[in-house]
C-alpha cells in the first residue's frame, strides 16, 4: 500500500501519469475483477451453506429462530447506525467543492447515465420489494448488480433445503465442497493482494492528481469508523445487556476483555471462538448447550461491525465522488450490507468482496474501493472485536431468555452455581 502511495505521488510530480495508467493501473483493475468474479459464487454458496447448516440444530429450533432473529435485528440496527453516522460525520465531504467538481466531471458520463436510468423507471413505494424477486435466476446470477436478487433466491433455496431434510443431502455435500473451493480461490486471490493494492492505490492517486486532500478525508473516515465501532460496543451492547439480562456491565466487560484482545490481534472471529466460549460459559454463566450453538453460528452469521463498516464505507465513497444517494438506495445498502454480512466468510479479504457487492448494488464506482483498502487491515482488527462482542451479547440474552443463565457465577467451586 505504502509503495503504491509513494509511487502515485512520485508519478504525478514527474508527470508519469499516463505511464501509470497504462502499465500499473490495469493490475489493480485485474485485482478488482478477481474479487468481483468470486463475489457471486461466494455469496450464493456461503449463504446456502450457512442457512442450511441450521438444520443440524433442528431440535433447538426455538433457540435457532431466536438466534437468527436477534442476529439479524442487531445487524440491521448496526447498519442503519452506520448510515446515520456517515451522514452526520460526512467524512467524504472535506473535499472542497471545486475539487469535487473536477472528479465529478471524470465520472460524469457514468453518473448521468445512472441518474437517467433511475429517473426513467417510474417508481412506486413497493417497487423496491418487487425488485428483490428475480424472474429468472440465471439472468440474476449473470448480473453483478443484482445481488439482492441472488441473495433472495439463496435464502429461498436454503430454506427449502432445510425443510426437506435428508433428501437434500446430495446438494448439501456439493455446496459444502464448493464452499471450500471458493474460500481457497479467495485465498489465492489474496496472495496477489499486495501487488493489486499497490496498483490500485497508485492508480487512484494518479486519478486524483496527487491530491493530498484525500488523506484528510481518509483520516476522517478512519476516525468515523473507529469511533462508531467503539460506540457500538459501549452504548448499543451495554443497552442490550442492561435491558435483556441482569448482568452487571462491569462483569460483562471484564469477562469480554480477553476475547476482545485475541480478536484484535488475530482479526478472526473463528480463531477467537475458543476463548469466546470459555469466557461466556465460565465467567458469565451462559449454558454450554446454548453457547455451543449460538456462538459458532454467530461467528459466521453475526457481523454487526462488518455490516456497519460496509454502510459507512459505501457512504464515504459516495461522498468523495459527490454522488447523492436516494432513500431507496440507502435502504438497499442497509439490506445488502445486512444480508451480505451473513454471507461474509470469516476470512481476510472476505469483507472486501462484500463491500464490492454493496457498492455494486447501488451503482457506486467500484474504483472507489481503493480509497478504503488502505486502512482496511487495522479497521478489520477493530471490527472483529466488535463482532465477537456482539456474538457474546446475543448469546447471553438468549441464555437468559431460556432460563439458562447462571449469573452471578459461583467462583468458589470453580463451576456454575
Amino acid at each position: 500500500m505504502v509503495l503504491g502511495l509513494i509511487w502515485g505521488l512520485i508519478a504525478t510530480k514527474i508527470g508519469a501519469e499516463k505511464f501509470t495508467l497504462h502499465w500499473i493501473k490495469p493490475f489493480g483493475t485485474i485485482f478488482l475483477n478477481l474479487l468481483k468474479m468470486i463475489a457471486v459464487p461466494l455469496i450464493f454458496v456461503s449463504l446456502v451453506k450457512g442457512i442450511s447448516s441450521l438444520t443440524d440444530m433442528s431440535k433447538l429450533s426455538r433457540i435457532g429462530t431466536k438466534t437468527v432473529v436477534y442476529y439479524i435485528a442487531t445487524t440491521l440496527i448496526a447498519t442503519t447506525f452506520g448510515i446515520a453516522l456517515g451522514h452526520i460525520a460526512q467524512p467524504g465531504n472535506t473535499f472542497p467543492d471545486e475539487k469535487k467538481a473536477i472528479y465529478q466531471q471524470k465520472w460524469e458520463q457514468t453518473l448521468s447515465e445512472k441518474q437517467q436510468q433511475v429517473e426513467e423507471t417510474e417508481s412506486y413505494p413497493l417497487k423496491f420489494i418487487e425488485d428483490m424477486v428475480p424472474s429468472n435466476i440465471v439472468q440474476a446470477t449473470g448480473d453483478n448488480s443484482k445481488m439482492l436478487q441472488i441473495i433472495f433466491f439463496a435464502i429461498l433455496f436454503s430454506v427449502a433445503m432445510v425443510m426437506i431434510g435428508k433428501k437434500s443431502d446430495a446438494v448439501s455435500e456439493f455446496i459444502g465442497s464448493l464452499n471450500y473451493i471458493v474460500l481457497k480461490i479467495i485465498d489465492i486471490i489474496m496472495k496477489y493482494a499486495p501487488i493489486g493494492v499497490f496498483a490500485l492505490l497508485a492508480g487512484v492517486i494518479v486519478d486524483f492528481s496527487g491530491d493530498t486532500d484525500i488523506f484528510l478525508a481518509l483520516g476522517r473516515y478512519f476516525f468515523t469508523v473507529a469511533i462508531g465501532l467503539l460506540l457500538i460496543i459501549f452504548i448499543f451492547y451495554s443497552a442490550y445487556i442492561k435491558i435483556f439480562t441482569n448482568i452487571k456491565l462491569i462483569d460483562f466487560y471484564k469477562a469480554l476483555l480477553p476475547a476482545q484482545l485475541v480478536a484484535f490481534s488475530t482479526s478472526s472471529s473463528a480463531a477467537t471462538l475458543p476463548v469466546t466460549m470459555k469466557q461466556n460459559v465460565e465467567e458469565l454463566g451462559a449454558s454450554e448447550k446454548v453457547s455451543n450453538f449460538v456462538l459458532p453460528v454467530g461467528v459466521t452469521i453475526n457481523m454487526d461491525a462488518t455490516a456497519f463498516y460496509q454502510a459507512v464505507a459505501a457512504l464515504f465513497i459516495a461522498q468523495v465522488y459527490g454522488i447523492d444517494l436516494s432513500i431507496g438506495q440507502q435502504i438497499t445498502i442497509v439490506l445488502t450490507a445486512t444480508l451480505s454480512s451473513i454471507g461474509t466468510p470469516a476470512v481476510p479479504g472476505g469483507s472486501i468482496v462484500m463491500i464490492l457487492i454493496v457498492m455494486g448494488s447501488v451503482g457506486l464506482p467500484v474504483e472507489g474501493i481503493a480509497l478504503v483498502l488502505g486502512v482496511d487491515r487495522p479497521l478489520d482488527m477493530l471490527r472483529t472485536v466488535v463482532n465477537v462482542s456482539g456474538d457474546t451479547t446475543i448469546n447471553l440474552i438468549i441464555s437468559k431468555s431460556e432460563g439458562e443463565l447462571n449469573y452471578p457465577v459461583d467462583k468458589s467451586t470453580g463451576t456454575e452455581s
Partner: protein
Amino acid sequence: MKIKSNDFNFYALNVFIINKLKFMKRKIPLWLKIIFGMILGIIWGLIAVNLGLEKFTSDWIKPWGTIFIKLLKLIAVPLIFISLVKGVTSVTDITKLSRIGIKTIAFYLASTVISIVIGLFLVNTLKPGGTFPEEKRKEFQAQYEQTVKEKELQAAEVKERSPLYIIEEMVPDNIILAMSDNTKMLQVIFFSILFAIAMIIIEPSKVISVKNIFDSLNDIILKIVDLIMKFAPIGVFALLAALVTDFAGDADLFLALGKYALLVCLGLVGLIFFLYPPFILLFTKIKLKTFFRAIFPVQMVAFSTSSSAAALPVTLRQCTKELGVSEGVANFVLPVGVTINMNGTSFYQSISAIFIAQVFGLDLTLMQQLTIVLTATLASIGTPGVPGGGIIMMVIVLSASGIPAEGLALILGIDRPLDMIRTAVNVTGDSAVACIVGHSENELDYSVQKNYSS
C-alpha cells in the same frame, strides 16, 4: 339392550358431520383459498374503481401480484430443466421414450387442429362480424393503426425466414444464455432432453453423482414451489384487484365487441367442458369430477397470471400428486405442452381471423379456411412466449389467408382479459394430454385420485 339401527345411523351421521366440520376448520384446501383470494380481489377491484382508489391499488396492491408472477417465473426454468432431466432419465428404455414423445406430439397436434376446426365452425355459423357497425370499425382502425403497423413489420420479418426456422430456433448455441431468457424455454427443453438422453446412454455408475444431485435438486425445487404456492391466495387477490382497476374503463369495449367477445369467452369455456371430457373418457379411466377438481387450481393460477409457464409448477404438481401421472411422463409432456400446445390460443386465432373477415365483408373460400387451419396450427407451435407474440402470429395467419391485417385493430383492445381465459384452456389441454399419455403407457397411478373406486 339392542341398539336400534335407526339410532345408530343417526349417531354415525352426527359423528361424521362433526368430524367433517372439524376437519374443514383446521385445513382449508389451497384451491379454496385461491378462490377466496380471487373473489376478494374482484370485489376489491370493483370497490376501488367506485371510490377512485385506482392509484392506491396500483401502488400498494398490484406489486404483490407482480411478485407472485415473478416467483413463479423464477422457478420455471430450473423446474423445467431439472424435472425434465429427472423425468426422462427415469424412463430407462429409449424406445419407450420415443414412443412417449410421438404420442405426446400426436395428441397435441390433434387437439390443436380440433380446437381450430371447432372455432371455424362456430364463427361461421354464428357470424359475429356480420352485424358490426361500419363507423365502429373505422374508429378502432384509427386507434390502433400504429400498433398494427409495427406488428406487420415484425411479421414480415418472420415470414422471410424459412419454414424450418422453427426447428432452427429450437437449438440454443449457448445454454446459459438460453436459461437466462424466459422466452427461450423450447431451447431449454431441447437441451434438457439431450442431456437426459446422454445420461441414459452412459453406464449408470458413471453418472450416479449427477443423478443424485438432480434428484436432490428436484426435491428442493418442488419444495420451493410448495412455498410459493402458499403465497398464491394473496398473489391472485392482488392480480385480480389490479386487473379490475386497470380495465375498468374498458367495459364499453366489451359492449362494442359484444358478440365477438361473448363467442370467444363462451367458446373457450365450452372447450374446457366439451372438448376434453370426451378425450378423457375415451382414453383414460379418470372420473371427470376428479379431473376437474384436480385441474381447478391450475386453471385459476393460469387465469390470474395469463402465463402457462408461470402455472407450470402448479400443473406439474396437480398432475402428479392428484391425478397420479408418473413423474417420468408429466415432467416431459407438460413442459413441452407449455411451449407447443395452445388449444385456447389457436381456437382464439381461428375465430378472430374469420371475425375480422366478416367485419370487412369478405367471404372466405374453403382454401382460405384451410390455410387458416394450417397457419394457426403452426403459429401455436411457434408462438414465442413474449407478450404480444401471439399478435405477431395473428398477423401471419391473417395475411396468409388474404384478410386485411389492419383488422387486428378491432380486437387488440380486449386481448388481455381474453388471454387469461385462453391460458386456462391451454393448461387444461396440457394436463388432459398428460393424463392420456400416462394412461396409455400404464403410468397413471389411479390410487392417488381421491374419488377413484376400481
